[in-house]
């Protein structure tokens, strides 16, 4: 019997099903839509099976082609990677269930193939242990996303897709330049191996590859000012795709930055700079979100703001800060993923993305609205939801070694949280207490779509009310990354 606790399966299973969809698309017709569900159910099983091993050893490393890592590509799942890949699989699973009822446009088999590929690419980005492989995963993700953003083929979708494509490929090129710089400096591509060999490099020599990789990943990670594609692309995509893009893509890209920064580029001088990026991202995201009339665009801007928040926490470069960042990442993935799914169902019923048309939905789509409220509360950081714990942690961490700048940043963060509260409460009050002008027949979303929402919402509620396992786990994960245990563990487990 094959040991299924192998991270490589997280990538290979969806790829297998992608090609299976291509193969069977012509004769299964719309039956292919069940294939992604199977794929991500399997993925979920695999990622859950990884838990015991990761908890025991701190990391699981899978090699390819039967060679030892610096000579072949390896997949390395550490604690946070595991958590994120569980979330990716979960979100992929629920979103593909959602797709069963949501996608009725042709060409279905292409959509489902690309969707599977997108989630596979994101998981891949999270778990890969090889820097060029990271680039490939980045491209898989991007190109699948370009196609999916344009899926509706209307004016907005095409424009958004094109903008995303241009920015994404510039970013890809920069990422590649950064990678090749590291290769030129060390002659190897394995992350751990590079980390071992960069110690003789000067700060200046490390800064350039870092800047390049940062630019490349920052474009997917939605860092200001590299994120201009995001508010166009997320609304244009079908909601299940927006959910993945918003929920996992930024998180995966930021996680990649975090991992590379703490293994390859262990320098401290850069964090101040990153913090400014984070704060700008936060400010521009939240302020822009406040003025939106289009609900998906508002959520997209809110994603930018959230990214800024957890990137800020990461740039504190302390165990507590990183822990806060990880908690916020988990919170953001679950709640924003859920919000997009909910909103997708609502848009389907209302036929508009304008917030004013959502008036009175709170009475007509009770379950959806309830979960929308929960997601919004968690994003705002209101207790007792998980966002509260993560915001608490981030602020505590930020004030730990407080200087004037950090205090100012905390004030900015909290101000932006107020702005966030302002627009989410505006949305909620329109939904629950607004009067619908037009008399549209609005029903609750179909059970299948609700199923996805309820699953995500339940997970969110569980970790909200019983947060300590997650908090402790994240603390360990953060400590491992900050203490450079990633390298030690990888060396111990044959990652090199």
């Amino acid at each position, binding site marked *: 019997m094959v040991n299924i606790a192998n991270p490589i399966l997280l990538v290979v299973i969806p790829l297998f099903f992608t090609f299976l969809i291509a193969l069977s698309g012509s004769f299964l017709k719309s039956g292919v839509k069940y294939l992604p569900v199977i794929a991500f159910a399997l993925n979920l099983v695999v990622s859950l099976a990884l838990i015991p091993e990761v908890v025991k050893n701190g990391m699981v490393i899978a090699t390819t082609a039967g060679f030892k890592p610096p000579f072949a590509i390896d997949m390395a799942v550490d604690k946070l990677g595991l958590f994120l890949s569980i979330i990716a699989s979960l979100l992929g699973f629920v979103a593909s269930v959602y797709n069963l009822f949501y996608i009725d446009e042709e060409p279905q088999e292409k959509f489902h193939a690309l969707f599977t590929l997108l989630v596979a690419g994101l998981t891949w980005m999270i778990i890969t242990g090889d820097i060029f492989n990271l680039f490939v995963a980045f491209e898989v993700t991007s190109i699948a996303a370009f196609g999916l953003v344009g899926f509706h083929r209307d004016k907005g979708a095409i424009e958004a897709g094109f903008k995303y494509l241009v920015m994404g490929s510039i970013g890809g090129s920069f990422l590649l330049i950064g990678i090749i710089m590291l290769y030129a400096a060390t002659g190897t591509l394995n992350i751990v191996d590079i980390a071992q060999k960069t110690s003789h490099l000067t*700060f200046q020599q490390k*800064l350039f590859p870092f*800047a390049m990789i940062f630019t490349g990943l920052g474009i997917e990670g939605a860092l200001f000012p590299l994120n201009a594609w995001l508010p166009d692309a997320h609304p244009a995509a079908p909601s299940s795709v927006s959910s993945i893009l918003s929920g996992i893509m930024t998180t995966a890209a930021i996680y990649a930055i975090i991992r590379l920064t703490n293994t390859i580029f262990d320098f401290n*001088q850069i964090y101040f700079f990153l913090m400014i990026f984070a704060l700008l991202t936060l400010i521009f995201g939240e302020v822009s979100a406040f003025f939106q009339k289009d609900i998906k665009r508002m959520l997209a801007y809110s994603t930018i703001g959230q990214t800024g928040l957890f990137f800020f926490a990461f740039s504190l470069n302390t165990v507590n800060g990183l822990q806060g960042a990880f908690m916020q990442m988990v919170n953001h993935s679950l709640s924003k993923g859920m919000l997009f799914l909910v909103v997708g169902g609502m848009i389907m019923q209302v036929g508009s993305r304008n917030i004013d048309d959502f008036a009175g939905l709170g009475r007509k789509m009770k379950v959806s609205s309830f979960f929308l409220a929960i997601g919004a509360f968690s994003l705002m950081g209101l207790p007792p939801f998980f966002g509260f714990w993560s915001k608490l942690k981030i*602020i505590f961490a930020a*004030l730990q070694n407080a200087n004037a700048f950090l205090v100012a940043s905390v004030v900015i963060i*909290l101000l932006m*949280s107020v702005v966030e509260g302002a627009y989410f*409460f505006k949305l909620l009050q329109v939904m629950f207490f607004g009067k619908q002008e037009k008399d549209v027949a609005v029903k609750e979303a179909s059970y299948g779509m609700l199923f996805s929402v309820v699953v995500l919402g339940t997970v969110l509620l569980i970790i909200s009310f019983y*947060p300590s396992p997650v908090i402790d786990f994240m603390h360990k994960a953060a400590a491992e990354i900050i203490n450079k245990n990633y390298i030690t563990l990888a060396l111990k487990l044959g990652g090199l």
Partner: protein
Amino acid sequence: MNILLEIMLATPFIGGLLAFIGGKVHRWVRYAVAVTFSFLTLIEALVYYNATIKGVVWGSLFGSKLVLQTNPISWLFLFIVTAMSFLIVIFSIGDMEEDKIKLDSYYMQLLFVEGAMVGIVLAGDLITFFMFWEIMSWTSYFLIIYGGKKSVAAGYKYIIMSIIGAYSMFIAIAMLYVKAHSLVYADVAATLAHSSATFVVWTVVLLGIGFFVKAAVMPLHTWLPDAHSEAPSPVSPLLSGVLIKMGAYGLFIVLYGFLSVQLAGNIMPSVFSTPILLYIIQWLAALSIVLATFLAIMQEDAKRLLAYSSISQIGYVVLGIATGTSLGVAGGLFHALNHAIFKGLLFLAVGAVIYRTGTRNLSDLGGLVKKMPYTFTALLLGIIALAGVPPLNGFVSKWMIYEALLQKKEVFLLIMAFIGSTGAFLYVYRLIHSIFLGQLPKKYENVKDVPILMQFPIWVLAVLTIVFGIFPGLAMNVIVKGMKLFGFKPIAYTLFGFPQGTAMGALKVINISAVLVVAFVAAWVLFLILSKSRKVSQYDNYAAGQVVTPELKYNYSFGFYMSFGRVIKSILKLGIERIYNYWVDAAKVFGDYYMRRVYTGNLETYNSYIVIVVTIAAVAILLGGKLW
């Protein structure tokens, strides 16, 4: 026994959920569950009468223990919360009608707010406190916006200001956490005792902003008039009577639980033998009293009038708490209790009127005294208490505050407090006159008094105003015992007031009451004997010889204090709200036209952003990694 604290905290939340689920079965299930669980909470609260329990650990977060505790002061507020909630649940059953408004989650939210407030009061550490504080904010937001379209805007203002206040507290809490790594009250106090003056002042100011927003102390009060008046009738007393007291409770905990007068005196200069921080708080409170009184006088809307009156009365509470002397603090705490009782009573009584007439506009009402006699009597008791007239409860607590100010020789504050009290006469007279006296508009001729379910809570509160008015010792029992824990000198008291000889004037309410009753009876008898006036029917009047038809009934309840308004116009023009609005609008314009326009929609701009970022990096590299 200790586990009961957690059970008690959980009771309202469980009740809320059950009420929601039970409501799906039948609405009476919902009512039954809500009443049962709020009553259970009240009973559980009564168990802790005068008990002191320290540190029931119920969890831990980020290395700080999460603790529940109770002491007599907490119990005082616990009593306010649970008793008022129970009465309000009962009132709601009569008032909130299923067919007018969807109620499936109303009782859940009501109980959640109660639970959150119980959590605040029982919290033994700042994380628990802050968590329940935030829960209270958003659950009460949902209650406020039950009132329909206008209340949505009010609720929005409320929640935004609450969030701002809460985040201000958040910074202070985070500062304390970083310093002490534990947020249990005792540890916080110990930390503050060894901190620099700047740190202490910042902590107190930041926490204070949070509390002042909730307690609606003057510059931060702007949410209250809208929210309290637009909220549904049963919710207003919860907000006015109970919720804003949480701010006072928090202020008390911070000033005397974390700091102490001595400590504050050591690290900052004193004015009138008061640490300057407390002195500033006193002034803010006094300003609230005076300005809110003036504003209340000018209102045309019954609930808005009461809302402004709440700002004014909470001013007394804060003023009392900020005096720093045993008597003053005790007066402040007692006034918190009294205010909860009489303001709850007033709001419920006005709610009853609204229930029958459907309006709360004072100039539309009048002459209801014959139609709603019980409500009238209760409201009369309420306004007497509010105005601080013996023998009802408002008198005693106000007397204590005056006495405390006198002892500290803070004459200006004393005068301001007196003005507030005098002004209160004006607006409460306006209230009762415009609603119950004068002409009865024709459309209200068929009005009846409200059903027993609504009478019951009103009368319970009415009786309480008398009980606490005549037996202030009942409350003093708790307050003095609790204040001893916070290091105050105990004040001597008896069941009926304060004995002579403890550096303050004696007060024996029973005597005053007796005198008053005798005087009242004497006056009434004199009136009966000596009166030369002709008794006329309420509906039989005329003006300048012209018979007034029912359609043209002369009603002078509009612009009641118009001439007075002209006098104080300059004060009313102050317009704190306008200043806020100006800044909010300016920020909005800035955000709209300068910030979000970076997303121009033009791809070449976006691409140049990328290039600029890379260029900055390149410059940094060329400069050898030194960009800053």
